[in-house]
């Protein structure tokens, strides 16, 4: 008896239910952010009042701006270091300390954030470092570097190496071959890595809580302290804005990836 090719009813049901489960809560949240009524039980019509409240809440705006700055800086550093690490791991063959290197690099992916947050804070205290923008940024860089490395590395290993070898056969030295041939091909992955690092930093609560200082709260820290007091419509508006920003970033990235699609790629950037 042959297995039915393609999708079975079970497959389709799994996918549909999975999609609903993942997206419905977000959709509901977005809809409620436009609810004119403060109550969850009453639909008071469409309104932007919660958005106005958010833009008038200077503490929130400050926290949002802080998060954006920390995210941008930490993502940039993490992308540089993560890409370098990915290159070393995928093209560097074996080298002394490779096991320790890959172990250290991939550990933050799974390490509970309370542990990394606490350990980094203790380091900063021991170094007598002033806690604020830079301590959070360094902490986030350490966390997100491994994500960048994973994204870029999966792309590097999927790439057709004969292209690099051809360049070297034609007389390029390895560095030039890398810059001229490999780098352009992995730019979409590097960009994807940057965005992943940015959104992870924007979203991090635990590590930021440990490593931040007075007056430099990030947006998740503010949202968290509000959420503990209960559901507030203003939070819905903030969340919708964050989702919109992230969605815009993702969409523009996908469009950019589609436009720069070249032969020689065997898989999507992620």
């Amino acid at each position, binding site marked *: 008896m042959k297995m*039915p090719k393609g999708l079975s009813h079970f497959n389709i049901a799994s996918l549909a239910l999975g999609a609903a489960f993942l997206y419905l809560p977000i959709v509901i949240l977005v809809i409620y952010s436009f609810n004119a009524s403060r109550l969850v039980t009453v639909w008071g019509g469409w309104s932007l009042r919660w958005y106005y409240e958010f833009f008038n809440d200077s503490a929130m705006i400050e926290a949002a701006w802080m998060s954006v700055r920390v995210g941008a800086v930490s993502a940039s550093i993490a992308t540089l270091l993560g890409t370098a690490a990915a290159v070393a791991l995928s093209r560097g063959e074996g080298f002394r300390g490779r096991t320790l290197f890959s172990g250290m690099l991939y550990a933050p992916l799974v390490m509970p954030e309370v542990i990394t947050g606490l350990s980094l804070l203790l380091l900063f205290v021991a170094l007598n470092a002033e806690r604020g923008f830079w301590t959070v940024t360094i902490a986030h860089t350490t966390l997100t570097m491994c994500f960048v490395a994973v994204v870029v590395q999966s792309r590097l290993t999927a790439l057709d190496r004969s292209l690099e070898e051809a360049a070297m056969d034609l007389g390029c030295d390895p560095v030039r071959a890398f810059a001229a041939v490999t780098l352009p091909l992995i730019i979409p992955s590097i960009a994807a890595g940057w965005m992943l690092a940015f959104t992870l930093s924007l979203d991090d609560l635990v590590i930021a809580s440990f490593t931040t200082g007075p007056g430099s709260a990030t947006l*998740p820290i503010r949202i968290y302290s509000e959420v503990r007091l209960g*559901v507030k419509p203003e939070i819905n508006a903030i969340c919708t804005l964050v989702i919109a920003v992230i969605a815009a970033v*993702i969409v523009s990235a996908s469009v950019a990836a589609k436009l720069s699609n070249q032969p020689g790629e065997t898989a999507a950037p992620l």
Partner: protein
Amino acid sequence: MSDHSIFTRPARFAAIAPYVWMVLFFLVPFGFVLKISLSQTAISQPPYTPVFDFAAGWASIEAAFGALSSDNFHLLLSDDLYVLSYLRSLVVAAVSTSILLAIGYPIAYGMARLPKQWQPIAMMLVIVPFWTSFLIRIYAWINILQHDGLLNQILLALRLVSAPVVWLSTDSAMYLGIVYSYLPFMILPLYAVLAKMEPALEEAAADLGASPREVFWLVTFPLSLPGVGAGVLLCFIPIVGEFVIPDLLAGSNALMIGQTLWLEFFTNKDWPVASATAIVLLALLLVPLLLYDRLQRRQLEQAR
């Protein structure tokens, strides 16, 4: 004829900067956690004693070493509060991971069976919620599950219940939040392995007379075990140390270890006990962490 070794030397240089960074900001801090875990809490800045003052000479360093003690570890291992917290964390993580596997596998399988042009879109659909703020998604569930939230409204309207059900501050809400947040971590490694699998293998098994169920359990599932391993470890390890989800969704009578650590550090301001908690947690996770590292390295080798 190309010489790979020409490329590998410069590639190794690229490892220097990230290496230094990780040693400094990932490895070294653990040393501090260990040291603080052996210290006592104090009303001072920093709030622990002894403090190593390297400028004060060797004698003071020796004295500081003498003041270190493992009292905190005795406390952790003897006090029921902590022992139960560790046990609860391990149980919650194990149960959550099982649910994640049961839900994630069919989804990943469905994705792998989609026509090739739909697969990147499906992957994007799975990844996008992951990129959307994790805190926001938990908050979205609080919105729905609260006393007069949408879920209760629907249940009341359909007359399935006569009074609003208490969903929040329960273990069920916590499990829901955990599964919701970690689903992409389970789906993606599974999908990665399932998508690479040769459909010819399943067809061959079917041709040889296996039923669909036999094909799955004898061919598909065993071949997908690396993905299962990766997904399980990617979920289990961080869930053990989870803080935000149990803090916002679970009841307050039993705490997971992430919550206990947070409490000790932020509320009790007891840095030494918090550090000791972290060390014991790390010790508990050592075996899964090593398994995860081995799995990662094997995948690295296979890909090269």
